[in-house]
């Protein structure tokens, strides 16, 4: 526009702020990863890339990476399905729809620590509701331990995290749905298309951009989820839920190997950045097509 510097003046505060609060500490983390600092606050020597060699040669890192991928994929699948179902319901007109649209968000507006305590109690065998309910419904014949095996621990964590996040995803999808012009459905109806066909031919394709963006942002957000996992299983049982953020925290604050944790962080960040760059390219391409 008229003033060439004006856009920069608009963008600068946000950029400078992010650079100072996130960028600068990230650089420090890189510097830390090249030293051999143990406990926070102790002195370290420069060791070059030794930490990176150690981390990449350690099976623990690769297993955690694999678990993180399972975690992200599981969350994406559960949340997308649950949110799509919920959004399709809330996109209908019925008495009380505004109320339902507002209060579906309840699980998301409660502090994570509270969510964790709620589920810890509900899943326990002393006073928890879930076990008796499942027994009554005939799903199981005696109480089970939800965190007692590798598979069920990961599954339970994914379900709890999805319980917290799917309302938000639902609203995002709902926003996408409301942007689809009603005339399209009318036209399809006149052409005699059934409900399934209308979904596969209109709703699904037109939701793609929203789903793509949600997929990218959701992947980054759920990849970095730490508190739910840490507070419920601490990465157990037998490391079955030790994702990369948990590994980083444990290495730094429980193993007292701060520099090694920094190296894991840097590698993780690089992986995520590569993903984010590729994804934003895809989004840009997607936009250009339309």
């Amino acid at each position, binding site marked *: 526009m008229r003033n060439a510097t004006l856009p920069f003046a608009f963008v600068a505060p946000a950029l400078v702020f992010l650079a100072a609060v996130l960028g600068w500490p990230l650089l420090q983390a890189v510097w830390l990863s090249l030293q*051999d600092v*143990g*406990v*926070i*606050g*102790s002195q370290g020597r420069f060791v070059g890339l030794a930490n990176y060699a150690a981390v990449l040669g350690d099976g623990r890192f690769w297993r955690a990476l694999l678990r993180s991928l399972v975690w992200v994929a599981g969350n994406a699948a559960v949340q997308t399905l649950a949110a799509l179902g919920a959004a399709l319901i809330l996109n209908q007109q019925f008495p009380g729809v505004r109320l339902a649209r507002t209060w579906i968000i309840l699980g998301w507006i409660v502090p994570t620590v509270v969510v964790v305590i709620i589920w*810890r109690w509900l*899943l*326990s*065998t*002393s*006073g*928890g509701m879930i076990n008796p309910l499942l027994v009554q419904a005939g799903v199981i014949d*005696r*109480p*089970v*331990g*939800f*965190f*007692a*095996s*590798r598979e069920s621990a990961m599954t339970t964590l994914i379900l709890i995290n999805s319980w917290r996040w799917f309302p938000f995803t639902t609203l995002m999808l709902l926003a996408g749905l409301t942007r689809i012009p009603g005339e399209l459905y009318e036209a399809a109806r006149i052409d005699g298309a059934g409900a399934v066909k209308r979904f596969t031919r209109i709703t699904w394709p037109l939701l793609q951009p929203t789903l793509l963006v949600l997929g990218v942002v959701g992947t980054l957000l759920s990849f970095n989820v730490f508190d739910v996992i840490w507070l*419920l*299983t*601490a*990465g*157990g*049982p*037998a*490391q*079955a839920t030790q994702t990369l953020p948990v590994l980083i925290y*444990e290495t*730094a*604050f*429980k*193993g*007292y*190997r701060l520099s090694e944790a920094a190296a894991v962080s840097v590698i993780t960040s690089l992986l995520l950045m590569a993903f984010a760059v590729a994804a934003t390219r895809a989004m840009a391409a997607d936009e250009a097509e339309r």
Partner: protein
Amino acid sequence: MKRLTFLAGLAALLSAGTALAEPVNLTLWHMEQPPHRVQRMQELLDEFNKANPDIVVKQEPQSWGEVYAKAPAAMSAGNGPDLLFTIPDFTTVMKGIDAVVPVDDLVKELDAKHGFVPATLAPYQYDDHVWAVPAYNMAISLWYRNSALKAAGIEVPKTWSEWKAAAEKLSADGKYGIGLPANKQLYTDQTVYSFMVNNGAADIYKDDGSIDFDKPQTVAAYQAYADLQKLSPPDSPSWTWGEAEACFASASCGMILQFTVINTYDTQAEADPADLGVAPVPHADDQVDSATISYSNAIMLTTKDAAKQEAAKKFLTWLLEPQTYGRFLTMEPGLFLPVTNDGAEADSFWKDPVVTKYKSQVETMVANSKNGKLFGFTTGKVFPSIGAISAQNVIAETLQHIVVDGQSAADAVKAGQARMAEITAKK
């Protein structure tokens, strides 16, 4: 309404900011965050500050969950506390960054005056110094209901085979004979180690600092634990202390290993005090005496300022005086046990209403605590890697490989030894 709460909060904020300028200010960090403990602490601090106008001690409760990261960060940034509550492995971490001041003279003086229980002092005595002043002790005991044992026709178990038989008998009508945790968490470290000390596997280090974990006694202890653990509720692999207590209080679990259940039993089970039974942790069949795990909680001096150090010593001396000490211990009555002989006799301790109500149980707990040991602090030599071994719950994780992954005890212990050695090898 909303405005009222806002104003109330604002007033609280303002009043909290007032402090006197001249006296020596001491900041005390402790991890006894539950509100009633903080309240009792404040009562004691108010009393001390009033009696000593030249000193102001202020408490800042933290949580065990974060303090391992927070305290070193705060110390290195220069805004750490002057007095810091601790357990043995946390002291090794803080000592590692040179944040702890030895308290040899003070402990000597207090020992002459009140007589420390040796088991509470031992985990802080190494490298030619004493690194903290013991404050209270906690030890694991076996808890049960007298009536339940009587109904099943069994005696209080003393050996592992008696214990297993008892647990099997108590497993009836959808109830669980025993509740043993298998979580990757400190509670499981504690219960597993209570088995190890009862089979002569107390030491996990050799004198040269190499790991001494993988031995037949350890394997047998894990095997015995895993066998009993099968009789525990299905959610026990995610238990912390609270779930075990709830299981016992609701009479779902016949027996549990715990520091205490008195408070929960008293407030949540609404049952007869005389029915609550407590005994030493049973020992292996070929052992003679019972031992247990004990956590000696202590207070470290973390200020380099001479005037503050003097003031802190004055405060610690005051705290351990029998007339104050009992009230300090009963901030959680029936959990915190005395570390001095004077304290074990102090009126201020035994006069607490809950302690009075459960006197015989507390007496058993105090007796058990004198036979307490802690992994990594048994040989008089302490090696820095114990901090990381404790914090990463290697003992508990070893159990998970048996309970969750179905490994043999021998394989799991072997892997545990390897993991500990790996941690020790890194700096």
